[in-house]
């Protein structure tokens, strides 16, 4: 079976811009996968999704969705994918039920079938009670659910979700995650963009981290946290002795076996060590090094590296 989404050497340069918004991006999404595209604002995620959903013209490179070349045959591709945008683009002249029915009509569904599908999906997304009110009355979470229901009306093979849970309350977020997993179990491939690290780690089978239009890493969430930053982190709050400083302490600490690297956190003397061994086995050796230099340890905190650590490690701390 061919890839659900394939992007090869994709380049997009907007007119009057010096840099490429997407700069030679390549990745493949397998059928039935939930694929997370992560990156800071302006990293090129939305542009990439724009190309895949036929709304942005690629400058060069190839992109296929469900085996269809989106650049050469956008009309055929539109039958096979659906998009759920971040902001509501529901048709406010229509009721929620009509939003679904007309969407199916655009996709060539006969009347009886589109009404039946609309009823089923409204029920499934918990909107059956409010199916015939004004769309304007919908909360953000309800609008989001309705947009996913609308996307499912024409039975897409690939679903693109742009920041699916931004701004949702925890209940809606959990509901959304369940629905997305449900879609996967029905064989729908899901490509989601997000900068919510928990969401990406929780939802995605694989994650691609993008910045400046380039792919920086691509792996399972577990693989990414293991590969880039070791197994865990050890946070130490330390007051250096007179004549000593944090940088020298870090240098000494990285000599300890099992510590891959260290960095200062904030300006209050906190040190974060990225470790390749179990963090608890390194507390003793680390404290020994510090006490031998007469430094005072005030707090110790162990943790495993998160996707956020990986993300910051790859894309830097600078504000966008």
């Amino acid at each position, binding site marked *: 079976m061919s890839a659900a989404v394939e992007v090869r050497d994709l380049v997009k340069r*907007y007119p009057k811009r010096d840099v490429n918004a997407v700069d030679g991006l390549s990745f493949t999404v397998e059928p039935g996968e939930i694929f997370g595209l992560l990156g800071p604002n302006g990293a090129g995620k939305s542009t990439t999704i*724009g190309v895949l*959903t*036929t*709304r*942005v*013209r690629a400058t060069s490179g190839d992109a296929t969705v469900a085996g269809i070349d989106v650049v050469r045959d*956008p*009309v*055929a591709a*539109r*039958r096979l994918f*659906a*998009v759920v*945008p971040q*902001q*509501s*683009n*529901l*048709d*406010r*002249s*229509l009721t929620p039920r009509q939003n679904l029915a*007309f*969407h*199916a*009509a*655009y*996709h*060539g*569904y*006969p009347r009886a*079938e589109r009404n*039946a*599908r609309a009823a*089923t999906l409204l029920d*499934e997304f918990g909107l059956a009670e409010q199916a015939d009110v004004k769309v304007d009355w919908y909360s953000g979470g309800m609008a989001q659910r309705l947009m996913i229901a*609308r996307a499912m009306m*024409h*039975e897409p093979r690939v679903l693109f979700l742009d920041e699916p849970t931004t701004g949702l309350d925890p209940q809606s977020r959990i509901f959304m995650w369940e629905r997305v997993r*449900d879609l996967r179990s*029905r064989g729908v491939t899901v490509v989601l963009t997000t900068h919510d690290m928990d969401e990406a780690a929780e939802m995605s089978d694989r994650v691609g981290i993008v910045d400046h239009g380039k792919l920086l890493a691509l792996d399972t969430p577990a693989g990414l946290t293991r590969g880039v930053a070791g197994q865990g982190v050890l946070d130490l709050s330390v007051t250096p002795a007179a004549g000593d400083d944090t940088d020298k302490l870090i240098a000494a600490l990285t000599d300890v076996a099992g510590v891959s690297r260290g960095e200062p956190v904030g300006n209050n003397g906190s040190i974060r060590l990225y470790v390749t061994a179990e963090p608890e086995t390194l507390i003793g050796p680390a404290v020994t090094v510090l006490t031998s230099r007469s430094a005072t340890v005030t707090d110790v905190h162990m943790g495993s590296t998160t996707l956020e650590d990986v993300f910051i490690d790859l894309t830097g701390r600078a504000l966008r």
Partner: protein
Amino acid sequence: MTDVDIRPSEARPSAGRAFRAILWRDVFVTGKEFWVFLAQVALQPLFMLFVFAKVLNAGGYVTDDYAHLLLPGIVALTAFLTALQTVSFPLIMEFSFTREIEDRLLAPLPTYLVAIEKLTLAIVRALASAVVMFPIGALVLGSAPWHADGLTLLVVSLILGSWVGAGIGLALGTMVPPSKISVIFAVILTPLMFTGATQYPWKSLDSMRWFQVVTAFNPLTYLSEVVRAAVVPDVPHIAPWICLLVLTLSGALFTAIGIRGFMRRALS
């Protein structure tokens, strides 16, 4: 999950079906808001007719003949402006705040057809408004001019004229940012309305050469002239073939500009 997923779908997507469904969406919404639509298209021309043909006539400032000359001009104006506004204002909103058009842009049909659909709807709505204007006009004036021989010319010219209005609407709707909507009214609509030979026959401007030249650049002038040629042929008018030619050419020109603008907004 549900039986809907198991039963094979009878969906047969095609560009033709998608086009019809999108057109039906717009007609459906027009029907839902029919009274709003009627007020939108009929009120302004109604007042214009009433003041210019009735009130001024009662005061002895205009003759009875003027009313019969004004009504065809007002019908032309109504069709033209209805077409223009049907496309431009919703489009400005749909491309910006509401983004409502996105679902239609992602329907399985070539993107330019979404623009063509807008033009089609505009012509339908403009013709409906023109049809409504005759009885309303007759009601206001007490009688309406009628010339059965001119019916074909009337229909053809109204279709062409609405197309031109729709084309201008498409060009404006894709070029003007939402913050400048009020500017359209002030800078574009008002001059269009008053330089379009709707309230006066073009030939009557012979003594005001400069204004006659100005009005010759407004496509609405040719629509007003040809509608008068069809309804009140006795009033001196520009030859219908010239009017139809100019309307066809300007329809093609503004449609081309509008579709270019539409594609630029729909695809980045």
